[in-house]
């Protein structure tokens, strides 16, 4: 549904993209993560025909973004990093304008827009000029604007930046439903939790190159190990606990301040072993947490290795 091959983009001497390739199958979400200036927005702008690529090819919904721009535009929706709405018009008039331009009749446009305003919780401010909207309202209007025409492919450039938790969950829910409906979504985000939660696959972009890609689970497996942390009850049982772990061929680290012992594990069954060792040491457990590596870990470790690799 989205096929990117060897895409490069240069702005004068700045090389925003240096040979990016990936595909997004129909009806899935690809999460694009990367630091500021990694090239996420440039990539989205090329895919939505706002910018021509310097070299390489990109196809969206089966059409080439350079040679078949019109066909691409008939099938996509974009929520850019910065709201693209008419500030002088009301939220409702903004959406009606878009619906009419996309081919809805006067009445169909009005009811389509009323529905969108409802689900984006904008009904109460619908008739106010958009310049009076809060940042989050603007963002929601922009999101609504990109799905007015029910496009096949949607690009979301940091869609939840500036949204409150409720609106963010709404947006996540929306993306999930778009996908359930067969829409293909490419989203960029700074929130790794968001990519983790929504995306079937993730591409990590750094300085215009794909640093890593895969499912969230694969990426995590590459860096992270899981670990179990137990909080010990009263009594100076830390050393005893470590000794018990050692006898079971496990290595733990004791945190005196938190009175906790952390043990790396490679499968869930090992949690029972750790608990067994604690019983053996006579320690009472006050708490137990299994820590999964997060995409933050992935991101930071990849960035670290990239930095050392390039120096």
């Amino acid at each position, binding site marked *: 549904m989205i096929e990117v091959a060897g895409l490069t983009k240069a702005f004068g001497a700045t090389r925003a993209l240096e040979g990016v390739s990936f595909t997004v199958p129909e009806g899935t979400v690809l999460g694009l993560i990367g630091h500021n200036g990694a090239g996420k927005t440039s990539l989205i702008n090329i895919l*939505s*025909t*706002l*910018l*021509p690529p310097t070299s390489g090819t990109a196809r969206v919904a089966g059409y080439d973004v350079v040679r078949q721009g*019109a066909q691409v*535009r*008939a*099938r*996509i*929706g*974009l929520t*850019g990093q*910065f*709201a*693209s*709405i*008419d*500030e*002088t*018009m009301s939220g409702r008039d*903004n959406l009606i*304008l*878009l*619906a*009419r*331009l*996309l*081919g*809805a009749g006067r009445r*169909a446009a009005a*009811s*389509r827009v009323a*529905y*969108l305003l409802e*689900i984006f919780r904008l009904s109460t401010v619908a008739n106010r000029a958009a310049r009076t909207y809060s940042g989050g309202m603007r963002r929601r209007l922009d999101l609504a*604007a*990109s*799905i*007015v*025409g*029910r*496009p*096949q492919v949607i690009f979301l450039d940091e869609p939840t930046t500036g949204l409150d938790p409720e609106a963010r*969950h*709404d947006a*996540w*829910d*929306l993306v999930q*439903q*778009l996908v359930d*409906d067969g829409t293909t979504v490419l989203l960029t985000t700074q929130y790794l939790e968001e990519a983790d939660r929504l995306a079937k696959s993730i591409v990590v972009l750094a300085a215009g190159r794909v640093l890593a890609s895969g499912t969230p689970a694969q990426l995590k497996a590459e860096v992270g190990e899981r670990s179990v942390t137990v909080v010990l009850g009263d009594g100076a049982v830390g050393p005893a606990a470590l000794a018990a772990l050692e006898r079971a061929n496990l290595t733990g680290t004791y945190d005196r301040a938190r009175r906790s012992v952390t043990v790396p594990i490679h499968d869930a069954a090992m949690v029972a072993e750790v608990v067994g060792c604690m019983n053996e040491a006579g320690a009472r457990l*006050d*708490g137990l947490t299994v820590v999964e590596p997060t995409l933050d870990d992935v991101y930071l470790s990849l960035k670290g290795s990239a930095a050392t690799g390039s120096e």
Partner: protein
Amino acid sequence: MSTTLIPATAPPPARVDLSGIGPPLHGAGALRQVLVLSGRSLRVLREPALLVPNLIEPFLLLLLFSQVFRSLAQVPSFPDGVSYIDYLLPAVLISMGMTSGVKSGLLLSTDLRNGVITRFRTMPLWTGAVLLARSFADAALNAVELLFLLVIGALLFGYAPAGGIAGALGAMLVALSLAWSVGWVFMALTTLLRRPESLQQIGGMLTFPLMFASNAFVTTDGLPTWLRAFAEVNPLTHAINAARGLALGAATPSMVLWPLCMCAVTVLVAAPVAMRGFRRP
């Protein structure tokens, strides 16, 4: 002991039914798009606060010119039997047409700075739609201004040309055509330069000498030779001749057709340039 404030299971999100939005849309026809966008640009007609300055301007123009230049009707070369207001008003129409054309460019640069233009560029929109809508909306606004000028001219300044109402409307059409073609030139400049300030300067630099080195306020016979030579090739002189000829009921076909053809040719050249410039990111 640790306390959790967030419940382990988040409340289920409200499922919205996306199918309620309606079927996919793939873009209206080009004509519909132009009409919808023109309607948007014409919101100014519905807002008195925005329209009033546009109407005060022609009134002031007429007042100033008719008072300042009235004495010119006494000079020997002035045509007999024509009152100065009958002579002047078609030139004011043309002057307003010229200004309206320059304004088209400025308004387009405002359009291009509007955030929504980025969205338009990702939508199935015909390239010319935004430009043509600007042109239509400005023509409509210009028509209102010109009509207003004719009406106050007749009511307050005693404008009663020999060509009657038909002649006056004919003069107005010439002014509209001029506005239309100058509008396309300035829209092309806007898409190429993308700089409203330089546009305003170019507009001023062109309008002023073209209006004054013409037969707008005086007959060219009274001008120094070099200025007369310029005035006679000045396209505005031809447009004014056509408008004046129609209003005074003394137009010959070539007098009217020649400037209209020039307008059409100008648009044919400027419009593709504007469209190409618009497509540029």
